[in-house]
């Protein structure tokens, strides 16, 4: 079933019975996501039943949101705990934003993605939309993009997601570069929330946002959320490492998946002149199969930048529908994570000890320990998926070297990006 988004300022709808997969509801207040109701295979809920569920499960985040809104001057006792009160989080944005979608031979889903991008609630002159067509085998993507005036189509011949991202950075004309994927449907508030966060947190080089599932039709999609999904909670978090005091990044922030994902991330454009572009040896389309976003998050913190997670910047991600694709995806997660660790250890010798500890610990705690648990309690999570990630993790250790050679060959064949 499609994910249902409700906002508590509008009247609650009733929930239709789940005919396919599971029914989840994203609960928002003042457009800010505050919680997820996992209704499962529900026979449907009336509006008042839904209201009761929300009051049961989301009372505290709602109260917290309202209490935070009430801070600072406009606390009116009678207004306290009223859902319709003014929310100070909706300041008018001024920043200019380039939205970049990197895609490769997936024209079918691209239209949904572009429809959502055209419907953004943001002043038109302040936003630029790019589609980077990465080493396409036909003209289908170009044909889809041609239907959307105002979307710039750019072809990047070097295969690899990070080549495409770097091309987007070079082509971007605006101050903030926001990345999303072709299997993502962005919320109409997405760019507004990103821009607001950059304006509020002046030190932020990178802002990541909330990724919720678009639909939970199949077992694979529910399993992916159970595996961890992409969502990282409903509160803003500001991350920074005290580089001046010699604090290391890897011990607490080496597992950069906790910050978010490449499907929903944005950077100030000057970030890249400060800390460099994406590593073209990483991410989809290379032997490393992923990790480009993880590595960039790490580099932002390691170079003394600030990274902010802002859940109001929400996008819906179409998780892969069938089980085999999920298995590949999870295996690639393992490869990408360990390839990123190898890359980070090579780039930053002072972090090597901490990265080694992290790699060993993660292998035990996430891969081996989960596998042992699944042997005792088979219902917890499918063993073959855990095993796929374990295999991928081990393979990932050697993939970065291969990916470097691969990137060098591409560079030799196509020349450098200008």
């Amino acid at each position, binding site marked *: 079933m499609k994910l249902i988004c409700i906002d508590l300022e509008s009247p609650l709808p009733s929930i239709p019975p789940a005919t396919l997969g599971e029914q989840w509801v994203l609960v928002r207040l003042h457009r800010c996501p505050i919680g997820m109701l996992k209704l499962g295979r529900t026979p449907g809920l009336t509006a008042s039943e839904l209201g009761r569920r929300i009051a049961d499960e989301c009372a505290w985040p709602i109260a917290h949101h309202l209490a935070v809104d009430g801070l600072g001057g406009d*606390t009116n006792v009678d207004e306290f705990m009223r859902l319709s009160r003014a929310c100070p989080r909706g300041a008018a944005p001024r920043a200019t934003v380039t939205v970049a979608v990197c895609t490769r031979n997936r024209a079918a889903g691209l239209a949904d993605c572009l429809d959502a991008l055209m419907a953004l609630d943001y002043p038109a002159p302040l936003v630029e939309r790019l589609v980077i067509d990465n080493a396409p085998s036909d003209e289908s993507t170009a044909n889809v993009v041609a239907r959307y005036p105002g979307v710039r189509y750019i072809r990047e011949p070097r295969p690899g997601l990070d080549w495409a991202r770097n091309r987007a950075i070079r082509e971007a004309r605006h101050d903030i570069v926001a990345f999303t994927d072709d299997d993502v449907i962005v919320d109409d508030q997405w760019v507004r929330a990103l821009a607001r966060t950059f304006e509020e947190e002046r030190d932020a080089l990178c802002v990541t946002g909330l990724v919720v599932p678009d639909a939970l039709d199949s077992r694979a999609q529910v399993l992916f959320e159970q595996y961890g999904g992409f969502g990282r909670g409903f509160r803003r978090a500001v991350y920074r490492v005290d580089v001046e005091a010699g604090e290391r990044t890897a011990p607490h922030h080496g597992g950069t998946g906790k910050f978010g994902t490449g499907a929903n991330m944005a950077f100030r454009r000057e970030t890249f002149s400060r800390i460099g572009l994406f590593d073209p040896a990483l991410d989809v389309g290379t032997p490393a199969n992923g990790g480009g976003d993880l590595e960039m998050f790490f580099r932002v913190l390691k170079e003394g930048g600030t990274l902010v997670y802002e859940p109001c910047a929400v996008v819906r991600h179409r998780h892969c529908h069938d089980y085999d694709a999920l298995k590949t995806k999870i295996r690639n997660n393992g490869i990408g994570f360990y390839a990123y660790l190898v890359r980070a250890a090579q780039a930053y010798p002072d972090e090597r000890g901490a990265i080694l500890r992290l790699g060993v610990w993660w292998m035990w705690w996430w891969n081996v320990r989960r596998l042992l648990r699944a042997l005792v309690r088979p219902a917890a999570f499918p063993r073959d998926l855990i095993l796929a990630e374990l295999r991928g993790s081990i393979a990932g250790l050697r993939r970065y070297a291969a990916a470097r050679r691969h990137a060098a060959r591409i560079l030799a064949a196509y020349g450098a990006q200008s």
Partner: protein
Amino acid sequence: MKPSRDWPIAVRMIEVQDALRGIDDLTEYPRTRVFVLDAGALIGSVDIHNCRRPISAPRLRQAIGDWQAWRLMKRALQRQIAVTAEPPLSPAVTVSIVVPTCNRPDDLRRCLMALRAQRSARAVEIVVVDNRPGTAITPNVVRDFPEARLIEEHRPGLSYARNAGFVEATGDILIAIDDDVTVPAGWLERLVAPFGRADVMAVTGHVLPVELETESQCRFEAYGGLGKGFARFEVDGSWFRSRRTAVPTWHLGATANAAFRAACFRDPAIGLLDEALGAGMPTGCSEDTYLFYRILKAGHTIVYEPTAWVWHRHRNDSSSLRNQIYAYSKGHVAYHLTTLMRDRDPRALVRLGWSLPKVYLRRAVERLRRRSDYPLDLILTEIAGNLAGPWALWQARRRVRRFGPSAAYVLPSERLLRDAPAAARPAPATNHAVSIQSPLA
């Protein structure tokens, strides 16, 4: 040398009823401690790991919300439910503030400046006690504050000094503060407000660090500081009697910020501060905890009122944290021995023979198992201080026998009858002072 991740800590205060702005001037500070006020009442603190960068208004807003939302909600509801107010304290009740000092002119000046800025409808008297008379240092400061009275106490020891101030003071309520605190606006009325109830004999307040600029200041605050938290509480005689182990009067506050009904010093069951305890004596501290003990034993109520906070400037030198902890540990044992010998309280034995060793054992085990980062050498310092306690108390008692006791407290209305006009102040023990080497030197 690389700067530290943990100090200095910027100390800021935010009123949530005012427009909330971000905090900018933080380039020197890896951390920030924000004390949160709601309509003037102190409700808690929030630590933000800002890594030497400004804190934006939304981040501050959320940090306060994350840590204090529940208290803010409770207070907002309380305002609607209209909790019945306690009986107000009559404006006719007079107050004396006693500030003992010894050659700390800068601290004293700051302290007196802040006291001068207090606004109160009642008669307020300020008594400065010079515990190191003979130099012009303290008189030179007090000369600039005509509203303050200066008296001298030659016998060294904080208890002697405070007692001399109490005996001279004429107020119905006597407030004890240290010379290294400064008081915020409105402090006086918040501290004396609980005396509107007849059973309240003493009120203690919160003590906040005015700055956390150096490692020793931060470590002292991390060790526990002087404050006792943000929640108001009160204890009374039934609480005192119901305790099976020693009554933890050391959790009630300190005379760095405390107020007493003057009548309690006249009560023979309570009396003044024990001269053998306290700073300037070998015991080092605990004179206030022993006074709280006597007040509770006499069946009265003590209120901890965190909204009546003061700012305290923690000592700066790096050796002083260790010395201070050593003194606390010494004074702690001296206090228990005093309750044992003076009041025949067997609960002191339970504390000394059982709970105290257990505390250290647990702390050491936790440290060795790496469950805590409490330094082992501090644990050893504490144990050494404890072992030195009995000897320190014996030394202090001998010294008090030589110096003689403080003058007895007499109610102001009865003083004229007692004293000849010329001898309005207690005779300073000058004959002793000549032969004594000051322990503070």
